[in-house]
């Protein structure tokens, strides 16, 4: 439209210098910016890595002078990280009388999925997990107003006060990987386990893993 009107005016005889706004060709600038953006996108570490805190039990220098804490065996859950991303568990504890006579309780195999280890832990930890979940729900719904720090603190207190949940002992077989270790600790956090610790694997437990994976049989262990 504008062009046509201009031409009509031009016929009228009066010649006007066309006043175009000066056009700057921005293409090179855009090109350059594209390059820079690509460069920054590729080199920027966007998400900062996260950390998971873990406290390991202190090394006891003279174990003979220490009394092991009295723990109800029914609440004991032993989780063993096996080779090839396999995971096993057994309840209670193995008595010296048993393992000295080559009687090893069988291990139950689980997996790292939500239906494996998580199901077991949630079953054992029902009361506490429900308490934590309800607490979190209330915070989300705004029934309890707390700062982030006190939420973490309150959950910690719930865990400390709990006396129904399992005592989980995590042990790593020598062929386990670091990924397994982090996965299982993560699982503890997801299931809200109040009491868990990472301990060295005992020789009889290594044997139990070897039996479970078919490396040795009970007979050849004799």
């Amino acid at each position, binding site marked *: 439209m504008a*062009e046509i009107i201009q031409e009509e005016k031009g016929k009228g005889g009066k010649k006007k210098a066309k006043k175009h706004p000066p*056009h700057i060709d*921005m*293409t090179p*600038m*855009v090109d350059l*910016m*594209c390059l*820079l*953006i690509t460069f*920054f*996108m590729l*080199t*920027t*570490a966007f*998400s*900062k*890595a*996260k*950390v*998971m*805190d*873990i*406290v*390991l*039990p*202190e*090394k006891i220098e003279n174990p003979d002078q220490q009394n092991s804490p009295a723990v109800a065996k029914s609440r004991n859950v032993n989780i063993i*990280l096996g080779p090839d991303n396999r995971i096993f568990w057994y309840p209670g504890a193995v008595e010296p009388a048993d393992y000295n006579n080559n009687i090893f309780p069988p291990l139950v195999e689980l997996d790292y999925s*939500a239906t494996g280890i998580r199901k077991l832990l*949630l079953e054992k930890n*029902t009361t506490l*997990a*429900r308490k934590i*979940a*309800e607490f979190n*729900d209330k915070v989300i719904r705004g029934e309890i107003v707390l700062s982030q720090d006190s939420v973490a603190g309150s959950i910690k207190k719930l865990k400390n006060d709990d006396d129904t949940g399992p005592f989980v002992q995590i042990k*790593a077989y*020598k*062929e*386990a*990987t*670091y*990924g*397994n*270790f*982090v*996965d299982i*600790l*993560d699982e503890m*956090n*997801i*299931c809200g386990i109040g009491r868990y610790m990472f301990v060295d694997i005992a020789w009889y437990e290594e044997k139990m893993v070897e039996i479970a994976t078919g490396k040795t049989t009970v007979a050849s262990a004799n």
Partner: protein
Amino acid sequence: MPKIKLPTKSPRIDMTPMVDTFAVILTFLMLTATMRQDEPANVDTPFSISEKPVPDFNTMTFLIAADGKVFMNMDNGPDTLLKFRPRILEEMGKRYGLEFTETEKREFEKFPSSMGVPIMQMKEFLAGRNAAERDPFQLGIPTDSLDNQLAMWILCARQVNPNIQAGIKGDAGTPFPAVKKVLDNLQEKKINRFMLVTSLEAAEINLEEIQQ
């Protein structure tokens, strides 16, 4: 009949808004950029639900590669005047009878990523001018009981910076005994609290699942 001549003008696209957007994105990226540092070993950290970010200061991070090599990195402290890194190197040198020059200390301070150089080759390593010259020295810190330089690094780091916290950054496929060795070394020095560096992952959990 003369043809009607349409003015043949190349269509112009107004690029100004595009340039504006680009400029904004570029500015944002430049301001938020924290350069990704090249680590001496490629490490895929495992996932966890933890949302706590890595602290900026007072950390020493042990990088444990999938083949079991150990590398170490520490920060310079909350204030650059504290110069923790060169001081740790100096302390380390004292224990192995090495005297590091000012230039070498400055080179060590500037070195951006994890280091896994046996202390006896540190001077050659620091004399290297670029990554290609330095990389052959990145053999991993010796951890065997005869020559446990890792324990010494931990000791020196703690001596220089008593508030230092230990972080472990391992590959998901690192065999556990390699990690255990580092943990044992730290525990011998009475460090029982660790930070495991992980990537974030969402966890799905609901009340119904628990009540079943």
